[in-house]
């Protein structure tokens, strides 16, 4: 177990290093001098040189990269070109909002997905199974930002039940969470159904039934517990996607989360903000996946000894 965790940690360090390198190379080949853009065209050569020096842009690129990594290790990404705010402060502030959104979506996706998947498995082949599986297919195939707009139109405007933008109170959270969570609810429902059907065929389920265990208990205790491993892996990875892929929903509902920060950074060509955001989002994703993998290895010993340890 320990050697698996160590291996996985070493791999993560290498991956994180690669991510900073790719991000740095990508963003530093962007055409246009950020300093000249920031100062507009009013500034003279001397001022531009001065600012360039202050921002550490007058040293060769490899040295800039080393400074960037040194900063990133201390979670210091410098200051935004535009707002002059410390990038890390902006990241933490926005990430709190995104975590709230992702957590709500996660709960929504798990509750709806597990329930629908179990109902579909229990009533396999009945109309309710086809209905739920059709709905889940729609859920995974419809763009999340489009679902968000439909929710705004129907629930926000036509029925006038919930606010359609902002992120001030609990009522504001409901529509964005549903919009972000729908796709994941759909895929959780599908894998729950498949996994439950696999388990229901097993001998121990037949034994439990023939012992006279109530059907509800058979499903909840014997079947669901054993069907959980593939579901848990999927759910873990999806948490990573929800935390890092909320920019579309944030745009629709004008939510000041980390996705909006990334989009703002791109629109303003604000390199420190953009570099910080990309590395931060990637970091969150990698760490969530690391935690999921390691906990998965605790649940399923085959991972520790088998193919997962490669």
């Amino acid at each position, binding site marked *: 177990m320990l050697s698996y965790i160590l291996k996985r940690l070493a*791999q993560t360090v*290498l*991956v994180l290093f*690669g*991510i900073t390198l*790719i*991000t740095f190379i*990508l*963003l530093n*080949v*962007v055409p246009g001098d950020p300093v000249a853009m920031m100062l507009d065209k009013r500034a003279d050569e001397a001022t531009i040189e001065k600012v360039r020096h202050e921002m550490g842009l007058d040293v060769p690129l490899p040295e800039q990269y080393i400074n960037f990594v040194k900063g990133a290790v201390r979670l210091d990404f410098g200051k935004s070109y535009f707002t002059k705010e410390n990038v890390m402060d902006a990241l933490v502030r926005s990430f709190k909002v995104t975590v709230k959104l992702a957590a709500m979506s996660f709960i929504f996706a798990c509750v709806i997905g597990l329930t629908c998947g179990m109902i579909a498995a229990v009533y396999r082949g009945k109309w309710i199974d086809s209905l739920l599986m059709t709905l889940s*297919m*729609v859920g*995974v*195939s*419809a*763009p999340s*930002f*489009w679902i968000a*707009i*439909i929710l*705004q*139109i129907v629930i926000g*405007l036509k029925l006038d039940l919930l606010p359609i933008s902002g992120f001030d109170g609990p009522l504001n959270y409901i529509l964005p969470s549903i919009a972000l969570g729908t*796709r994941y609810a759909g*895929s959780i429902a*599908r*894998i729950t159904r498949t996994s439950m059907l696999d388990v229901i065929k097993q001998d121990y389920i037949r034994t439990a039934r023939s012992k006279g265990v109530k059907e509800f208990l058979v499903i909840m205790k014997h079947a669901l517990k054993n069907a959980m491993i593939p579901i848990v892996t*999927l759910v873990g990875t999806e948490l*990573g*996607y929800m935390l*890092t*892929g909320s*920019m*579309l929903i944030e*745009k*629709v509902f004008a939510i000041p989360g980390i996705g909006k920060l*990334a*989009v703002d950074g*791109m*629109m303003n060509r604000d390199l420190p903000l*953009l570099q910080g*955001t*990309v590395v931060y*989002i*990637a970091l969150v*994703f*990698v760490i969530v*996946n690391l935690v999921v993998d390691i906990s998965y290895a605790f649940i399923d010993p085959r991972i520790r000894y088998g*193919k997962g340890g490669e």
Partner: protein
Amino acid sequence: MFNKQKKFEEAVLSGEYSNDDIEYSSYYKDSFKRLKKNRMAMVCAIVIILLVIIAVFAPVLAPYDPDVQDYANILKSPTKAHLLGTDEYGRDILSRIIYGTRVSLSVGLLAQALATVIGVTLGALAAYYGGWVDTVISRITEIFAAFPDLIFAMGIMFVIGPGIKNIFIALGLLTWVRTARMIRGQILQLKEKEYVEAAKASGATAFHTITKHLIPNCISTVIVLVTLGIPNAIMYEASLSFLGLGIQPPTASWGSMISSAQPFISYLPTYSIFPGIAIMITVIAFNIFGDGLRDALDPKMKN
């Protein structure tokens, strides 16, 4: 987004999905027979063919020029003259959706083509040579796989700029990883077969062995991967265009149409609804057809 592909990947890597021992002519014939029995998949195949026809014959089928502005008819609800209404420049929404099919399908297909070329090449090299080549390629694959998908695509689009060609590139760079992993896994298994030994023993070059003996035996994997990868690419394109990083106006793309419809959701809700339905139908059709194709090409996987 990746469930189907992931399940398929696991099957390929575990060796459950393999077809190299089967005699080929009858293998494809049998697969096609199995596919024909899958009614849902056949319906979706017809939908895909229709979409291709719509894309190819867009100029004939579209009732209006998608870019012609008509300021007398701005933001009209669906009428007989404009079946799906008009947008904020008076352009016909139906015609723009029809032209949008071209963008979505070509992005899906070309992005997958690029991903397949990169993925198959790197996967085959890693598996064939092993050793340090494998290590380097595998580590690079890991780094790319560790990037959250959307922010990575956004970053590339930011750097190389918007436009349809750049979307091919960004999505190709985003999605080659899965292909590389699967091809590597499959070639690792194929490498041990007698006919590969025989080819090597008779003096075939590495290039010959890879291109004539190994890659042809991965074709069915590639077909399924591409079919299931197209809807993903279409979804990414729509997302990027919605964020303003993809297809630029005035070119009609489903994602950017939804984005420009957003300010008018209370005045003309149908404007934002129709392009989304187009995306959904396309994605569902490719997903179900891809599933059917996978089951047909490997009956062992179906249960």
